[in-house]
């Protein structure tokens, strides 16, 4: 079932033993056909970052177009294609796979103490499905593009004359399976491949988050597959499912779509919350506050996520009774989110906080997620939502959650595990500067959009009233600032790959298992079985002058393990 079973013969001969997963084998095929979760993770990460660049370029084009009312650089039809592509690429190709498939693939088995995921071949297949989905999305551009919005609302999506609708729906269908397989793999891995001593409540919170995410991926994504299938059937065979002129119901489509796409919001944010739990605790060198509350809140969010989809449809013609019920349930999501935020903040209390680049992203996350979460209250409340629905207020709200939280969490996680993944350190000061520039740019861009929205500017508008221009100009300037930050961030990583200082096994003083193996990890992750302890006990750390950071003190560690053993007996 996994690579655990037999060590490869060449591994037994220590003289030829390669030192890490990157140099284990060489050549294109050794990557293209690899079953190593770490290489698959790295390939996913490269593909996701490339997509992020493309989606980001579209975002900048959009913001540039919106500098002035009327035409600035492109026509209305081109603009409509731009915002559709920006949304579809960022959601389906970037944020959904970014943490589970890219970072999760790399980190989950090591963190768990396993040699690989439960089904390595399925893992590789899931990556190729992602590539297939991405190619279909690219092909849709050649086929005439699509201007439906990433939500594909009917009957517009079944009647629009742009030729790329069916290719991109096929792409989304395939990407969905990629997501399902990753989720399935993670669920089985967490259940079956935990080494002795790794009990559920010893698992790092990132694993709890990935586990909760995997459940949503497996349960919700099939509904998306069915929905896009029905859409393709309606568009190609003129079978009336959603189009009222053929006897269908457009509101039914919205129910189907949001039954997936609301949980999908949590596929994006929950793993980022897991990363933040790790970052705050590891870089604050402080036992996470309220481990169980955080772990259970991930599961609670995963469950609630399935029963709140109707809040996307408060003005859609859904009945008042349904709106009332969905509004009430939607507030339930606020509770676990609040618990997490307060617990992270309390984790800083009496910590030993190192303001490293990952920590800066972690603190940015708490700031941005608090705003993103609190503005959700305006939208869950029925009478205020009627005014704010489908305005820039919603755009700002979900960018604070999707980008300011999920994506910032992902970038923070990338900084956190970068030394582990590449074996190289990056320039800390430059990385912190990039984080601050992104943070400022982000707030300038999106906080303005809250005002724009509550003042009544509808979303997806090519042309707008002159009184909104000042907000749009500020927002666009913010987007440019943010782009500078991301370029600086990318430059840091490139510099690190080319000439970064060699990374020690444990640069931050982390206690979870991935910090016990070398950086980068060997092909089979651990040369000897790892010892599982309390991954949030930082008492055995001491300041090391040479490393200019906290390292695990072997003597203190032995004492702590002995103390824990006594406690258990």
């Amino acid at each position, binding site marked *: 079932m996994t690579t655990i079973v037999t060590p490869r013969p060449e591994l037994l001969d220590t003289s030829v033993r390669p030192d890490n997963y990157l140099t284990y084998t060489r050549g294109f095929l050794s990557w293209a056909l690899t079953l190593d979760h770490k290489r698959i993770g790295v390939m996913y990460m490269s593909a996701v970052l490339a997509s992020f660049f493309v989606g980001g370029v579209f975002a900048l084009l959009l913001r540039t177009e919106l500098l002035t009312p009327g035409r600035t650089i492109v026509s209305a039809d081109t603009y*409509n294609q731009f915002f559709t592509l920006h949304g579809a690429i960022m959601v389906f190709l970037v944020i959904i796979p970014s943490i589970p498939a890219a970072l999760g693939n790399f980190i989950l088995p090591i963190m768990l103490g396993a040699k690989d995921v439960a089904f390595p071949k399925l893992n590789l297949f899931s990556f190729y499905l992602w590539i297939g989905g991405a190619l279909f999305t690219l092909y849709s551009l050649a086929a005439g593009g699509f201007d439906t919005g990433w939500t594909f609302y009917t009957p517009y999506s079944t009647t629009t004359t742009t030729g790329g609708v069916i290719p991109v729906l096929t792409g989304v269908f395939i990407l969905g399976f990629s997501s399902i397989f990753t989720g399935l793999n993670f669920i089985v891995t967490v259940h079956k491949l935990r080494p002795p001593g790794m009990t559920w409540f010893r698992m790092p919170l990132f694993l709890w988050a990935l586990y909760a995410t995997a459940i949503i991926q497996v349960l919700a994504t099939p509904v998306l597959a069915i929905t896009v299938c029905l859409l393709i059937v309606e568009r190609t065979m003129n079978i009336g499912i959603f189009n*009222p002129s053929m006897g269908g119901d457009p509101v039914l489509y919205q129910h189907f779509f949001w039954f997936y796409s609301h949980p999908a919001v949590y596929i994006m944010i929950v793993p980022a919350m897991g990363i933040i739990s790790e970052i705050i605790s590891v870089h604050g060198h402080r036992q996470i506050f309220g481990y169980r509350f955080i772990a259970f809140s991930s599961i609670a969010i995963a469950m609630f996520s399935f029963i709140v989809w109707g809040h996307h449809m408060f003005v859609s013609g859904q009945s008042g009774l349904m709106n009332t019920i969905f509004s009430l349930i939607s507030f339930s999501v606020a*509770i676990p989110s609040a618990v997490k935020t307060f617990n992270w903040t309390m*984790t800083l209390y009496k910590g030993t906080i190192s303001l490293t680049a990952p920590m800066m992203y972690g603190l940015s996350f708490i700031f941005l997620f608090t705003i993103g979460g609190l503005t959700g209250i305006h939208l869950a409340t029925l009478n205020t939502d009627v005014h704010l629905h489908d305005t820039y207020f919603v755009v700002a709200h979900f960018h604070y959650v999707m980008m300011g939280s999920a994506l910032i969490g992902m970038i923070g996680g990338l900084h956190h595990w970068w030394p582990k993944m590449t074996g190289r350190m990056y320039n800390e000061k430059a990385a912190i500067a990039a984080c601050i520039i992104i943070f400022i740019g982000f707030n300038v861009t999106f906080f303005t959009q809250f005002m724009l929205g509550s003042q009544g500017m509808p979303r997806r508008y090519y042309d707008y009233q002159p009184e909104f221009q000042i907000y749009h100009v500020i927002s666009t300037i913010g987007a440019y600032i943010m782009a500078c930050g991301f370029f600086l961030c990318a430059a840091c990583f490139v510099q690190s790959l080319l000439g970064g200082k060699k990374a020690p096994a444990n640069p931050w003083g982390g206690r979870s298992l991935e910090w016990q193996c070398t950086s980068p990890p060997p092909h089979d992750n651990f040369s000897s079985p790892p010892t599982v302890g309390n991954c949030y006990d930082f008492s055995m*750390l001491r300041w090391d002058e040479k490393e200019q950071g906290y390292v695990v003190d072997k003597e203190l560690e032995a004492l702590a393990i002995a103390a824990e053993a006594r406690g258990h007996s």
Partner: protein
Amino acid sequence: MLSTLTSIFIATASVQTAPPVVTPADFWLPIGASVQAHNVDLMFNIINYICYFFFVVVLAMMVWFVIKYRAKPGTRIRTDGMTHHTVLELSWSVIPLLICIAIFFFGFTGYVDLITPPKNSFDVNVTAFKWGWQFKYPNGAQSDNLVVPSNRPVRLVMRSNDVLHCCFIPAFRVKKDIVPGRYSTLWFQCDIPTGIEEKNGYHLFCTEYCGTGHSNMNRRVMVLPQAEFDEWLVKQAQWLDEIPDDELYFKAGPKIYARCQQCHSLDGTVGLGPSWQGVWTRLTSPGGARFSDGKSYADIIGPGKEYATPEDYIRDSIYNPGKHLVATYGNVMPTFKGQLTDRGVDSVIGMMKHLDEFDAKGAWTKTLPPAAAKTESKSEQK
């Protein structure tokens, strides 16, 4: 907590009896002009203050802890922080829950008021289409902008000709999707007249994405005192009838063309529909293949053919736009059946025949009606 709840309750109760006024725009919200706006704004502001409070608490704690517990090189690891605190954790689960339930409740009661039109409401029929609005009144009057009486609840009964649209009037804090295949309704009441001047009217937007012209579906809402409104209503129902036949094409034509100009240019610019430039010459000369099925004008227009005259063809193109598609253009034009009367169609046809008298934006450039127009426009009357 309790005091917050009480203040919400008192505030809600007092607002329901307060006399309606126009609330000026502030940092967050635009001008509020309907009787419902006050409740929505109050709720919005209460939620805002709750958000400010929690945001400041989280931010202050975060900044304080980071400054206070920041590790300087060489600092020993602190191990005296507590690992959990059940009472504390339960309290920050339960208190937000109670606040949320309270917010839900007041949002819900406000929403019920927002969606329940009073019985004596004045109905306006609204048709949304790609990309425009048609407002129809009980007496048959039609308007491109929404004109409503003041001091009286107005109910919009809305339907869509094609895809999803959404009617949003920010100043009234109301919004409702318009779903093809069913009616949806929306009501509001505005007590402060704006006058008939378009620039004083409130914005009306489409907020459900509907394609190319989505952002150009903005119209204005004008509020008139009842007497003035009644007068407007009568005049609006008869405006086409009051124009003499021979002045129809330059008086009514440009007004109606305003609804066509998003897709049909006058100067040959390619739009979503064919340009009107030289249309009459094309229609009356033999020409080659014109339609997507390879037919030419001569194949369908002429005595004994599908259309006896070019005028018949144009009329049918307005009422049944998908019947003959000009090559390379899609079937995207909505039907204007029931929206454009015969006199309206005559105005459009008359304009097409005299395009040389109009500039690229559809404004009539002459000052005197040419006598030649007289006979032609007469012959179109049925």
